[in-house]
């Protein structure tokens, strides 16, 4: 008999616009010792399924049908007090955004003690020792000192270890991990996932790993369930799903997952694959960065964010800037787009030094129009009270020197260029989907026909299928408009698809640079090798003969 069995689960949320079905008849099973992956894009109901199983749905959500059985217990009908005994002791859960998942004003050791004592795993006298043991179990160095730490004193990866320690403190049989590594750096992601996998194997537990990352699921899960719009569309081993997906949606997801050996067009569904455009790269540098240094005054002495880096971007070239959080890539990009001033160094744009003009005066500089940026968070980078048209039109009105009618015309052209239906132009940001917002952000950035575009993780918050479309759009725009890109990202697979040249940064320094293919295939620096090894590797997709058109 399986440990967990969900049959025909239905969950509905009461909203102001009536009842919304989030989960529509999901059935799945988890055996003892098995790791099940649930994969799907946002809105697929994968998280709601797990919350329903834990009976932790928000106040307006309720289970409207189906059966939930854990080890013979009917989870849907047991009393709330029984459910509270099961949570943490039998079934545990870890979450994304680990720092927010911990009480900010309670010592992490005490938070673990709370759980231990709740489930009678420790008494007042030995709680501290048990909590330290739990911290040691998740390989936290110097656990005794960390016991007294508050979440804000720990890194994101460390917080996630504490969350795992908390979840596993009472030896549950089933662990539910809801996007456990989203928002963490790639090497941290690997460390955390390896730790989870190891602990699960050690304690012969079962697990449910909820993720949007097919590659990650493929690497760590025995079996994968693909969900879409509240339903299970396909189920099978990772190998099988990748090599021979049955359902069209699975196929689309597998295609859209960036992976070694696949070109950028291969991310799109087969029928949308057009030949890749030719991208001429000139030998004349457009942007030359020389000995760029940025030092902040920190609380405990100066912080060297960028320690004298030099590189060039040729006309028409796409350069990838790769690194983990804190490596200085965001500082570099905000200096290049002239939103911040460097401490020292030169930024030669077409031979002229941009660093001479202070950032606060650069908005009035004639070269402002030539350097533009696409921001990471498509939602937060728009004024919520401006329509898409207004957002795209704003740079034109300020710097474009066009009449009102010409501007209207131009906004329409831009919308066509980025593939945004003109009818959506009068909507507000909250009325647009993530992909549509990304298009508006790109349209705004290219409105003034810049020569140099800085893309700061423009697809990080998007679902993979939308990411595939946006990445292809960026390639097409580069071909059409001849813009040079600086693509800032932590995702090496994405950088490989979009860039000719790659720069790897760590601790404010460039550790490796070179043509994308060379850096990706034969990395010379140990850190680049580590980054590449940390990225999940999905099983190779066997391309059917029909898609040989590439």
């Amino acid at each position, binding site marked *: 008999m399986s440990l967990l069995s969900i049959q025909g689960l239905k969950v509905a949320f009461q909203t102001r616009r009536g009842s919304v079905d989030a989960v529509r008849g999901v059935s799945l099973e988890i055996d003892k010792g098995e790791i099940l992956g649930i994969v799907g894009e946002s809105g697929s109901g994968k998280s709601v399924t797990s919350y329903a199983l834990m009976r*932790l749905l928000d106040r307006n959500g309720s289970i409207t049908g189906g059966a939930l059985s854990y080890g013979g217990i009917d989870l849907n009908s047991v009393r709330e007090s029984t459910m509270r005994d*099961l*949570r943490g*002791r039998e079934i545990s859960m870890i979450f994304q955004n680990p720092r927010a998942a*911990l009480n900010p004003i*309670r010592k992490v050791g005490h938070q673990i003690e709370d*759980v231990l004592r709740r*489930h009678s795993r420790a008494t007042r006298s030995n709680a501290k020792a048990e909590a330290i043991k739990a911290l040691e179990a998740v390989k936290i160095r110097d656990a005794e000192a960390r016991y007294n730490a508050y979440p804000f004193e720990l890194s994101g990866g460390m917080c996630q270890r504490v969350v795992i320690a908390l979840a596993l403190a009472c030896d549950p049989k089933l662990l539910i991990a809801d996007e456990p590594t989203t928002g963490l750096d790639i090497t941290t992601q690997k460390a955390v996932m390896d730790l989870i996998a190891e602990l699960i194997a050690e304690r012969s537990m079962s697990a449910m790993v909820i993720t949007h990352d097919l590659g990650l699921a493929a690497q760590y899960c025995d079996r994968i369930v693909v969900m879409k719009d509240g339903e299970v569309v396909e189920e099978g081993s990772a190998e099988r799903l990748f090599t021979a997906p049955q359902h069209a949606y699975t196929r689309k997801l597998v295609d859209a997952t960036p992976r070694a050996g696949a070109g950028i067009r291969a991310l799109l569904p087969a029928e949308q694959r057009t030949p890749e455009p030719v991208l001429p790269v000139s030998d004349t540098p457009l942007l030359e960065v020389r000995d760029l240094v940025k030092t902040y005054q920190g609380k405990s002495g100066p912080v060297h964010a960028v320690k004298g880096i030099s590189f060039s971007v040729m006309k028409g070239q796409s350069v990838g800037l790769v690194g983990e959080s804190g490596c200085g890539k965001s500082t570099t990009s905000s200096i290049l787009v002239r939103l911040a001033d460097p401490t020292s160094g030169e930024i030669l744009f077409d031979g002229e030094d941009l660093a001479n003009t202070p950032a606060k005066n650069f908005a009035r500089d004639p070269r402002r129009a030539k350097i533009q940026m696409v921001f990471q968070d498509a939602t937060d980078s728009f004024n919520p009270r401006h329509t898409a048209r207004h957002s795209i039109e704003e740079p034109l009105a300020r710097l474009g020197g066009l009449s009102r009618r010409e501007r209207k015309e131009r906004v329409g052209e831009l919308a066509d260029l980025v593939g945004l239906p003109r009818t959506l132009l009068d909507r507000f940001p909250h009325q647009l989907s993530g992909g549509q917002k990304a298009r508006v952000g790109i349209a705004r950035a290219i409105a003034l026909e810049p020569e140099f575009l800085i893309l700061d993780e423009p697809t990080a918050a998007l679902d993979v299928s939308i990411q595939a479309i946006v990445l292809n759009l960026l390639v097409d725009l580069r071909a059409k408009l001849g813009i040079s890109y600086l693509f800032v990202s932590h995702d090496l697979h994405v950088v490989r698809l979009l860039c000719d040249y790659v720069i790897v940064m760590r601790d404010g320094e460039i550790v490796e640079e070179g043509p994308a293919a060379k850096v990706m295939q034969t990395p010379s620096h140990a850190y680049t090798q580590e980054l590449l090894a940390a990225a999940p590797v999905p099983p190779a997709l066997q391309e059917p003969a029909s898609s040989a058109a590439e």
Partner: protein
Amino acid sequence: MAGRLSTIGVRITHAIPVILGVVVVSFLLTRALPGDPAVYFAGAAADEESIAEIRTALGLDKPLYEQFIIYAGDVATGDLGNSLSTGQPVLEDLANRLPASLELTLTALLLSCSIAIPLGVLAATRPGSAVDHLCRVLVTAGVSLPTFFTGVVLIYVFYYLLGIAPSPLGRLDFIYIEPDHVTGFYLIDAAIAGDWETWLGALKQLVLPAATLALFTLAPLARMTRAAMLSALSSDYIRTARAAGLTEDKVLFTYAFRNALLPVITTLGMVFSFTLGANVLVEKVFAWPGIGSYAVEALVVSDYAAVQGFVLAMALLFVALNLVIDLTYTLIDPRIGFETK
């Protein structure tokens, strides 16, 4: 701990320029007031000559900067001057009246906290329930009813109609003798003296004005508690705590409530400082010999020393209060001490 001590030190040094500024501003403001203390002091029958004489005696004929130097020197030695209207040293007046105001305000706040906080918590845990509606009604009433109105209504009902409350004439009915001055708080002093009859008498006098103020201060506190609890309860760490099977009491009090306390304490500080200076109306209605009515009387007759003394005393009190709130904050929230380093 060393971090916290240095935080306290930094906060105290921050207060010094504030106090110096208050000394200057209160001095200048009182000079800018319309009205002439010499004219008032001389009385209705005075002629030009006697007014000029009094002006010289008071030192008001000297240039402003000279007056200020004399004033600053006196303040530095703890001499706040004599009040023209009461004839007493201002320091003595304040020492008599400040405890009356503090006793009233603190009792009122104690009362309103003991109602507002549980009410806000209950309302947040049961949105849309009867408790939530009750909370909303009380908050609306507290905000919209002015204190002089509720005060008069309470007197009408409890003193005039029901006759349970004593006459609203100050801190103690004339049949009792004031307890020996220890803290100036009659309830505490009477308790120290062991005079429970006086204690009860003082309490009876205190109930109505305290209730009036409490209803007024209840509104912001209950509102903030409810809002802070709601936001704490919807946060990720509450979900984690629930997923770990912690009991509802633990989730509610150790996890949600302690986090929700931070904004409530900020509000409490604001309400306290506001009430202390602004409960003139309540003091007038109940003939309470507090600091607010003292200041208004002094202001009307341009009693410079008394007004300056009042402003200075309030400023010191505010600084001390803010310090206490900051310290409470550092006790609850470990993130504070580190950020100020």
